[in-house]
């Protein structure tokens, strides 16, 4: 059972591996994405704690060795990799770190589509969003990501982002709760510009403080904060099959104790 991180650690990244085969999820009432994240991270933490803590230095990566995030498909061309990265106030360095970790998991493959969800102090702050967008554009230019998009932005913000960017957003994600009442201007704009208007089922704050407490305990939840979170989805092309879903989260100590 996980109780506490060694005090020497200032940053911890946790990778869940493919959660689709987690039998708990097939039995329990299906959770919202936050619960799914909490439960799948907990499994990894508990296993890590049980195996004996090996934490020299201030940085720790925890992941399950025997579970791959990418299915062993003979033909990678049959697969489609899509990712969603969720950043708080870490700015471009946090986003860069999140994407680099994804690319490591994928080995040589590129990400087919990546959606950014920015949940900073002021998520409609266009300059901050543009800073992050610039990071994404660089990855596209380097052929590491094919398509980029954003989630949960106001129509006006999205249109401005679209106009200001060199590499245009190919995707805008909106909450499932609003998929029947899409603002007409957004619908029109996306139609006109061939932007995919897709849905997601994620809460506004993917790892709220209650979930942090639930996962890391009171004390650790106070000392650490979420830096970034990402989700990697692997689809089998043209068959509507989800082959793998894995989560990565990175937390950082906000003050030394």
């Amino acid at each position: 059972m996980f109780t506490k991180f060694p005090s020497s650690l200032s940053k911890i990244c946790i990778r869940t591996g493919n959660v689709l085969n987690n039998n708990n999820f097939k039995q329990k009432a299906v959770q919202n994405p936050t619960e799914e994240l909490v439960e799948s991270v907990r499994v990894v933490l508990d296993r890590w704690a049980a195996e004996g803590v090996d934490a020299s230095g201030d940085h720790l990566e925890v992941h399950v060795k025997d579970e791959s995030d990418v299915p062993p498909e003979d033909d990678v061309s049959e697969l489609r990799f899509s990712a969603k990265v969720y950043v708080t106030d870490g700015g471009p360095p946090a986003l860069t770190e999140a994407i680099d970790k994804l690319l490591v998991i994928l080995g040589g493959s590129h990400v087919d589509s990546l959606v950014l969800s920015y949940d900073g102090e002021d998520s409609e702050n266009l300059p901050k969003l543009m800073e992050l967008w610039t990071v994404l554009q660089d990855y596209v230019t380097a052929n590491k990501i094919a398509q980029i998009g954003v989630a949960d932005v106001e129509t006006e913000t999205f249109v401005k982002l679209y106009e200001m960017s060199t590499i245009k957003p190919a995707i805008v994600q909106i909450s499932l709760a609003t998929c029947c009442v899409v603002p007409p201007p957004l619908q029109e704009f996306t139609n006109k510009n061939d932007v995919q208007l897709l849905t997601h089922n994620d809460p506004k704050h993917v790892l709220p403080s209650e979930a942090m407490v639930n996962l890391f305990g009171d004390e650790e939840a106070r000392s650490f904060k979420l830096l970034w979170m990402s989700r990697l989805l692997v689809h089998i092309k043209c068959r509507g099959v989800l082959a793998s879903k894995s989560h990565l989260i990175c937390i950082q100590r906000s003050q030394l104790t």
Partner: protein
Amino acid sequence: MGLLSEGSPLSWEKTKELADHVRKHGVIQFINLYHRLKNREGDVLKWGDEVEYIIVTFDHEKKVAQVSLRAPEVLSTLQEKELRDPNNVKSLWRPEYGAYMIEGTPGKPYGGLLAHFNIVEANMRMRRQEATHVLQGNEVLFSLTAFPRLGCPNFSSPSYKPTPSSGASCSLFIPDETIFPGHPRFKTLTRNIRLRRGEKVAINLPVFKDKKTQSPFRDDLRALGDASGDSNGAALPDHVYMDAMGFGMGCCCLQLTFQACNIREARILYDQLTPLCPIMAVYAQLRAADIDHLLAQHVAHLFVRDSVSLFSEKVDQDDHNDTDHFENIQSTNWQTMRFKPPSPPPPPPPPSPLLTRVILSYNINLLIPISKVSHSLPFTFLPFTSHSIAIVCFVVLLTRVILSYNINLLIPISKVDENMVRAQKRNAVNTERFWFRKDVGHESSSESPSDVCTLMTINEIINGKEGVFPGLIPLINNYLGGMDVDADTHCTIQQYLKLIARRASGELLTTASWIRRFVQSHPAYNEDSIVNERINYDLLAQADRIQKGEVTCPELLGHCIISKTHETIPKAVSKNYDCTD
């Protein structure tokens, strides 16, 4: 509809003589087909629905509704477009057993994108419009399971008298003129099935007992022409007795066909969607040919039947390339689900893909004299387009969930049979409990079969049971959360899933309950279980007003089922996902 070979039908005697020939070569053909295709990989998902319609004609002055035997005429008009330009039609039209029935399918299968779920409804509506357009002013299309007065005097227009001692059916209730006359298959089949059995079909359904129902309930079969007394011997007291294939084949079905990417996937889906049938005759032959146990069982089960219709041109075949004998047996076994290997690959047209065919019949636990033998998922399906679509999408999504999450729904076959019996009880959706697998996460288990399942209500299976099973709809929602779904498609799918969830929870009436309620509160109903011509007329007229949207029926359809269906998938989606065929 299965194989429809053109040609000259052989007599039953001749067909019977050839039965062993067909069986023997059918098995060999299957074995060859299997070995040719077992390693085939990588087909993409394609799927489609087939909806059958009954043409009903209304006489508004006399307040009579009858099935209209104009299907041959209507079909030839509907098929004109396809004959001119077979590759670019949006719908295909085919004959069905009844001379009052037509079957419509989309012109091309739907593809492997979630966005395809959003064009099903538009296509179904378009098909209905297209067919309605060629009807006469007093005719209406229904996807009703059974015409309420099927087999009663004057149920068709024009009206004919049954011929109990001659013809194909020899039925006391169903005149041969109501069997589709445009293809020899249907009557040949009717005749040969009767001859194979050595007697007429005998279907007995418990009668819905009302306050003044005759007790014990018995039809006067002698008065209807049962000179030999055979029918009288086959009819059970307190049951509605039916003596012809037309009672089953003359009902509407919703069929769903989807393509698996390889034989393994097809089998997972087949197994998961309905457990396999018991071991039968030619099993040993299949096993010896290195076809594994379970698949062999299934195929063996098909071959216990003699073929029921043969055409003289098709008797001698090349077993390595032809599969007519296999198809012949396969297509005349009406099961809830069929495992359908690809058709043989004659060089010019490419082989058609591996298909698992799921046939869902609309299942009505109808009250009074007329109903049908039906089975399938423990639902009662609705004769309204929105419900057909909801069911089609639900099942296809469920197959995606099974494949994505590796869910194991297998339960012992005896429990499946028990479920079938329970499903046919009145108001099963609200009152019955069904066997369901306890732990859907486990691959397979060595536990005793009684340990793997538990009893659950339909509501618990569909919507979830705390701590035991998440529910099929929550699982579908979890799956959708991990897929790229465009907003309109997701909105539409949500409406369908809500409809199914609310019917499972009992919040909405099933069609059967709605019909029961309608009949029982009709002023012309005498509490005697009999749907007379006037009730029949009013029931169908009301159903038509509901399906046209002229009257709302929130207790049946819920409040707002407003989907965002489109005729085509959005350009931004099709551009980015190359799944076009």
